[in-house]
């Protein structure tokens, strides 16, 4: 989600970086990039990042991927600022991003984890297998109709 119109070229660059664990969406869509500032006088770019979960193992990789992408495009002096507050929330995922997740087989977050749709047959008759899945932000579900298992992106 683009929360800021300034420095569009930098937002564009960062939206080319796929989430390492959920590659169908990029870091901008995931909502972890909160602010970008270019300071031409100091020849510097400052990027504010809000982690999804404090213990997310991809946190460090996010930083490396951002630095790499910017370096390749000529931005050598980049400062990354980690900001916990306001806390990351799945409310920052746009409807477009959620549709993308569903299409790729990950059921997108819904309010209070209530109505959860099977990404395969689109039935909402589903059940939780485990609140903890393959990444900190996902839970394991199974569809009662088509019986297929799937990942659900937890509302957070």
């Amino acid at each position: 989600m683009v929360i800021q119109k300034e420095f569009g070229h930098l937002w564009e660059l960062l939206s080319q970086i796929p989430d390492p664990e959920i590659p169908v969406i990029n870091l901008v869509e995931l909502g972890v990039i909160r602010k970008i500032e270019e300071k031409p006088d100091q020849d510097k770019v400052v990027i504010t990042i809000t982690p999804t979960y404090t213990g997310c193992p991809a946190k460090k990789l996010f930083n490396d991927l951002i630095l790499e992408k910017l370096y390749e495009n000529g931005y050598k002096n980049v400062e990354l600022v980690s900001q916990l507050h306001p806390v990351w929330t799945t409310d920052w995922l746009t409807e477009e991003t959620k549709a993308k997740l569903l299409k790729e087989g990950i059921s997108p977050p819904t309010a209070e984890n209530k109505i959860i749709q099977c990404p395969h047959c689109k039935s909402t008759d589903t059940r939780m297998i485990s609140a903890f899945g393959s990444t900190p932000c996902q839970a394991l579900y199974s569809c009662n109709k088509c019986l297929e298992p799937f990942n659900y992106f937890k509302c957070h």
Partner: protein
Amino acid sequence: MAITIDKEQAQFLVRLADTEMILGQRLCEMCSNGPFLEEDIALSNIALDLIGRAEQLYILISEIEGKGLSADDYAYRRNEREYFSIKLVEQPNTDFAWVIARQYLHDVYVKEIFTQLLSSKIDKVAGLSEKVLKEITYSHVHARDWMFRLGIGTPESNRRLQAAVDHLFKYAGELFAFDSIDKKFLSDITKLEQGWKSAVALTLAEANVKQPEIHKIYMRDYREGFHSEYLGHILSEMQFLPRAYPDAKW
């Protein structure tokens, strides 16, 4: 004066950070040892949360202390007596009931603490607390759910849970032996103690587990750096690599 306050603030946060770090390490031991695959993944996920939380706290402590130490320095370069984790979280993974009961008793305690820290004067502590409260809900619900399943499951699962609770309650007393530092940074210690006791009593009753008495402390307090026999073993394993290879990084 300002320096004293900072020192006490850091000391208060170290207790919390160390408690999360050590429980995270304990749960890491369960990785690949869970009773079934989904549970294995759940415990490993919770371990990640705990370690991530400890890391954020160490970063904050470092900012307060201003000695330029990293989260690694705090986690890996301190000995037993320099650790301030509660004894409850050092207790071993004797069986699955111990893992669950320990987690449940811890989650209720820490949830109460972070709820009170939402009104901390330090913005970053309040912000982190908001984050933690969101994350810990999953762990708390998970642990409580298992308390019921084990407690009212079979006579054997009930017996095991009762044994775990009986053992772990020995370490409940020190949770509420608040000192002047706790009193300074927690907004309401009575509420913390009552909140924990009533939530735990309710869960134990529903899980058909007899609640043991909470004894006064008969061991020296964790707030002074005293631990059960287990902490040294945990640290020796956890710190081996960074001590053997001092340049190793996360």
